[in-house]
């Protein structure tokens, strides 16, 4: 099997170098949005004197870590021209399953974590397997998983929350190490691992290759099916991570948790420059996209903007941000 892969690798190299133009636009994408994020931060700092404080900035990153982690998985999926609508429901399923094993003095901490991560991974692998083997559109398969996972979460708990969690489990979402909240640390670690996966490994090359031209990748010898299963499995795993953090943060497993998180995650990826047409996207961009959403949510709350206006403004800002970005790309 290893010899097969190395042959593929050689064929890949010529293909990847020809897409260096894409790489340039990817970098532009990233910095364009960074500029918008900085502009938003400056604007909010002027409007609200309490916005630009260490406490509040940590607050924003911590709040966005759950959606941000999901968005990283979704980004990789979108790069392969796929989509994952099941993240929010998987979070709920993971939430109630992990919480059920996280009561004080029952199981060691590793058990709820393993169950949560395992379940997330499983849902992702099921998504990926059906998408690649049965050739059903990702939109449909993950829509099915979105419904089924939510149903399973409700079934397990009879629609009720699961409380009474151990202190060690609560530490994941509520604790801090050296003044940095644990969710932010996990967010950072997930971001770093995903960055390396996408930029420094064969896996990453193949992901971009599949997104750029699936047919060509297949002809070049990439086992497209297997990599798709990896990609959806990884997205599922990250939903599992997010589900565990969320559960720990709110001290309860909630079958109704995570509603619409998949859309926030997709929005973060797209704001961050990921192209829904596939082949383009970067972890850094997605993290910036998530932070833009976080800064907006936080800033509008600080300014006590009416909830009705908040929704309108968020919609406008998301659309305008992506519009500016696409204009800039066209010019370059």
């Amino acid at each position, binding site marked *: 099997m290893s010899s097969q892969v190395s042959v593929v690798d050689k064929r890949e190299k010529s293909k990847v170098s020809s897409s260096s133009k894409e790489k340039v636009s990817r970098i532009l994408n990233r910095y364009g949005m960074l500029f918008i994020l900085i502009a938003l931060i400056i604007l909010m700092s002027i409007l*609200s*004197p*309490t*916005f630009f*404080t260490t*406490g*509040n900035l940590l*607050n924003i990153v911590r*709040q966005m870590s*759950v959606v941000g982690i999901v968005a990283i998985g979704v980004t990789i999926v979108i790069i392969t021209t796929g989509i994952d609508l099941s993240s929010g429901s998987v979070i709920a399923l993971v939430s109630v399953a992990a919480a059920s094993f996280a009561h004080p003095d029952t199981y060691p901490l590793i058990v709820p974590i393993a169950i949560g991560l395992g379940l997330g991974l499983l849902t992702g692998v*099921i998504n990926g*397997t*059906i998408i690649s*083997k*049965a050739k059903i559109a990702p939109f449909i398969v993950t829509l*099915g998983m979105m419904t*089924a996972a*939510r*149903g*399973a979460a*409700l*079934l397990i708990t*009879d*629609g*009720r*929350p699961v*409380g009474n969690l151990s202190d060690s489990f609560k530490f994941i979402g*509520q604790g801090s190490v050296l003044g940095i909240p644990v969710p932010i640390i996990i967010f950072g670690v997930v971001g770093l691992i995903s960055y390396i996966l996408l930029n420094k490994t064969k896996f990453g090359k193949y992901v971009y290759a599949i997104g750029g031209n699936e047919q060509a990748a297949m002809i070049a010898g990439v086992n497209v099916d297997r990599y798709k299963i990896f990609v959806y499995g990884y997205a599922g795993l990250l939903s599992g991570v997010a589900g565990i953090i*969320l559960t720990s*943060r*709110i*001290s*309860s497993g*909630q*079958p*109704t*948790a995570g*509603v619409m998180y998949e859309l926030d995650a997709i929005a973060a990826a797209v704001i961050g420059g990921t192209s829904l047409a596939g082949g383009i996207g970067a972890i850094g961009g997605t993290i910036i996209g998530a932070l833009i959403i976080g800064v907006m*949510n*936080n800033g509008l*709350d*600080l300014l*006590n903007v*009416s*909830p*009705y206006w*908040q*929704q309108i403004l968020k919609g406008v800002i998301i659309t305008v941000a992506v519009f500016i970005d696409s204009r800039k790309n066209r010019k370059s």
Partner: protein
Amino acid sequence: MKVQKRLILFIILLLLSAAFISGCGEKQESSQQTSSQSGEKDKIVIGAALPDFDDKWLSYLQDGMKEYEKAQKDVEVIYVDAMNDASKQLSQVENFIQQKVDAIVLVPVDTVSAPEMVNKANEANVPIVVVNRQYEGVENATAYVGSESIKAGLMQMEEVAKLLNGKGNIAIMNGQMGHEAQIKRTEGNKQIIEKHPDMKVVLEGTAEWDRAKGMTLMENWLQSGKKIDAVVSNNDEMAIGAIMALEDAGKLEDVVVAGIDATPDALEYVKSGKLKVTVFQNAKGQGQGGLEIAIKAAKGENVEKFNWIPYELVTKDNVEEYIKKWQ
């Protein structure tokens, strides 16, 4: 190899369909009930159209109906879930009419589409009892059973005003904007605040009934640096989120937090003194009352048009009584 792959795919499909069937179990059950009932004319069949089986509070309402159903002889209730889809609910109500149920209990998905459903039932001469969600024109239905949302807001805020000695800065945490309960509960809050010249609303936002979002909103409010004396929330889940954020910041001692619903979780927070006020909307009572009136109407007995199930204020003093109710 190929056989193996097919086998794996087959197993996955099998698992999925198993999950699907178990998920739809309740619906199948209900359709079986109807078919078994068509033979026995002496049984009273009630169709219960509920908006969302997944909703916690509504599941308690359904429990109330189920308990009352068990205590009755010759009554069978068919439960259907509209999954928060008004058009789905309309077709479910139409199906009930087609099945010639003896009466319908309707908890509307939204109050805009409800009049249409009531009209359909009226045209077919099937008694229809609207439960929990009130709207203008609800008197066209055979009867209404519920609690007045605004009263919950009034009751909650009155208690908070008492705790604050009639003065202070109030932050209002709204549910999903546009929901009847959100509009009325907040309206009730504001009516009381207006009566106290030393009280004012300093912050208002929405956390969409959700604990995690309530926590986020409270964290952001705390960052705003505004002085907050009380957080008045449209429901308990958001109030619990606010409590967690306040605890994190070490400020729970200075802030009165109030919720509505008296969910089992919330009662634990009342018991420990973290949640100062909640309001009990009697879910089981409404479910039971709705079914009771529907059965009466099915038998052709006279029923009251409006049947109010009162709200009850829950504080640390009487919390034990309510904890027992959920057990």
